[in-house]
């Protein structure tokens, strides 16, 4: 059995609800989706038990009425586990993963700025990557955002 299948097996045996939600797209690539309430368990298990100890990055998605987040975790062996979870746009609140990965701070700030996610537990600090005077409620990576919105808001005086 390949190492990817081993990992999948271990995950499914631990968390029955993952059955059918795991895809191996090619050697060293595992994609899996989970609901928000199950996410912390699965995430912690992957990091602590399965030794996925390197967080590559977090990708945000705008999926119509939901915001989705994909955490790309890597193992020493080169296997990538892509954990996806989603949250409603009305209250897009997720918990920070900084206790496990202090380096995730900047990735989470990016989600805050570009997708309008709310991240519980993120310490105060500079925003990234947008400017301090960026208009509120404008999240550039959401699908409905157009650069023209920025002009309307600012009234563009060039000065």
């Amino acid at each position, binding site marked *: 059995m390949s190492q990817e299948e081993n990992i999948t097996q271990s995950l499914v045996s631990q968390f029955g609800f993952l059955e059918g939600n795991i895809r191996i*797209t*090619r050697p*060293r*690539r595992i*994609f899996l989706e989970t609901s928000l309430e199950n996410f912390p368990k699965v995430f912690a298990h992957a990091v602590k038990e399965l030794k996925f*100890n*390197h*967080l*590559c*990055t977090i*990708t*945000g*998605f705008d999926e119509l009425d939901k915001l989705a987040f*994909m955490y*790309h975790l*890597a193992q*020493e*062996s*080169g296997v*990538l586990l*892509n954990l996806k979870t989603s949250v409603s746009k009305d209250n897009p609140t997720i918990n920070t993963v900084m206790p496990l*990965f*202090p*380096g*995730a*701070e*900047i*990735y989470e700030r990016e989600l805050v700025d*570009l997708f309008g996610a709310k991240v519980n537990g993120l310490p105060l600090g*500079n*925003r*990234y*990557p*947008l*400017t301090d005077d960026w208009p509120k409620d404008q999240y*550039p*990576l959401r699908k409905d*955002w157009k*650069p*023209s919105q*920025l*002009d309307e808001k600012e009234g*563009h*005086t*060039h*000065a």
Partner: protein
Amino acid sequence: MHNSDRFKIPLGPQHPALKEPEGFSIALMGEKIMGLDIRLGYNHRGIEKACEERNYLQALYLVERVCGICSHAHATCFIQAVEEIAGVQLPRRAQYIRTLIAELERIHSHLLWLGVAGHEIGFDTLLMYTWRDREIVMDLLALVTGNRVNYGMNTIGGVRRDISPEDIAEILKGVDILEERTKYYIEVATQETSIIQRLSGVGVLTKEEVLRLDAVGPTGRASGVSRDVRRDDPYAAYGEIKFNVITDDHCDVYGRTVVRVKELMESYSIIRQCLKNLPEGPLTVKVPRKIPAGEAISRYEAPRGEDVHYVKSNGGEKPERVKIRAPTLANIQAVKQMLKDRYLADMPIVVAAIDPCFSCTDRVISIAEPKKDNRVISWETLRNYGIDWYTAHGIDFTELNNKFRKKLERV
């Protein structure tokens, strides 16, 4: 400022130590750094958003422009993900050529870094020497790809240019010279007292901290973390090539220097193997006209560390989502740790030691358009925009412009 015993020094967004705009605000007590505040984002250009507005081929060229130095890294990383979604198996010759360019790029980047490091510690001689030798590899890149930077070698399903036997001879010749020079730099970097004085013990990042903060590339490897995507998650032709992953346990800037110069030697060996085993065959394969729906994540060991691109396709003309994580973003967070209790004089070299590339880091957004719905800004508009801006700030160039115009008319 007078009453407090702390100075607050702004390093950036514009500062001679930084080649790109990025803000560091340092609280100083005497010469000692008491606190550091990093503000990123000045180079945010909206590339991720812009990719969603373009088709895959256009996006490829855009992504190549994420960074001027590791352009091949970003282009390859992106295109690997697209090819994975399309289910394309690359011809072996194309894989070898990609690997070759990747290593040439690594040489150019590491030599550039060595020079910048020299400059940051006030050793301009090293800068002049390494940048002179860097011209050799720049010429080779120009010979093979036609460009010194932004090579444009990749296309979906292969590479765009072949290399001829003459090119191979030239590259081998250049690599021989570079190897000689690199041996000399290894000697300089490991034996010259004033360099060692300035580098060792500076910017310490222990192995545990590397793992905790997810530092990548030479920054991590210099702390004894053997992490290299080329070996762990092989792409292109790396699976068929023998090379060592260089690590060092100095954990400081000196270690990072040693790792980089030794990696240069590995790159020469990889290039020689690539050229020796260069398979015959086509350069591209046929790719379905439409990229099917799907998602893929691609990793690539750029000169600065692990580069990650995620691409999601919805089966349409344009990618649904493109996510780029450049190595600097992973490393910049370690800088705070490295500068704890250090001196102001160490600041430039510590920042430089992660080989920061803020263009890469900041990729995304902010299109300030002078006029609405006018995506392409004509030269005239841009010029007027500038004039308006200065006039609004009380600087009037009208007279000067008129003079200039008259002069032009006379010619």
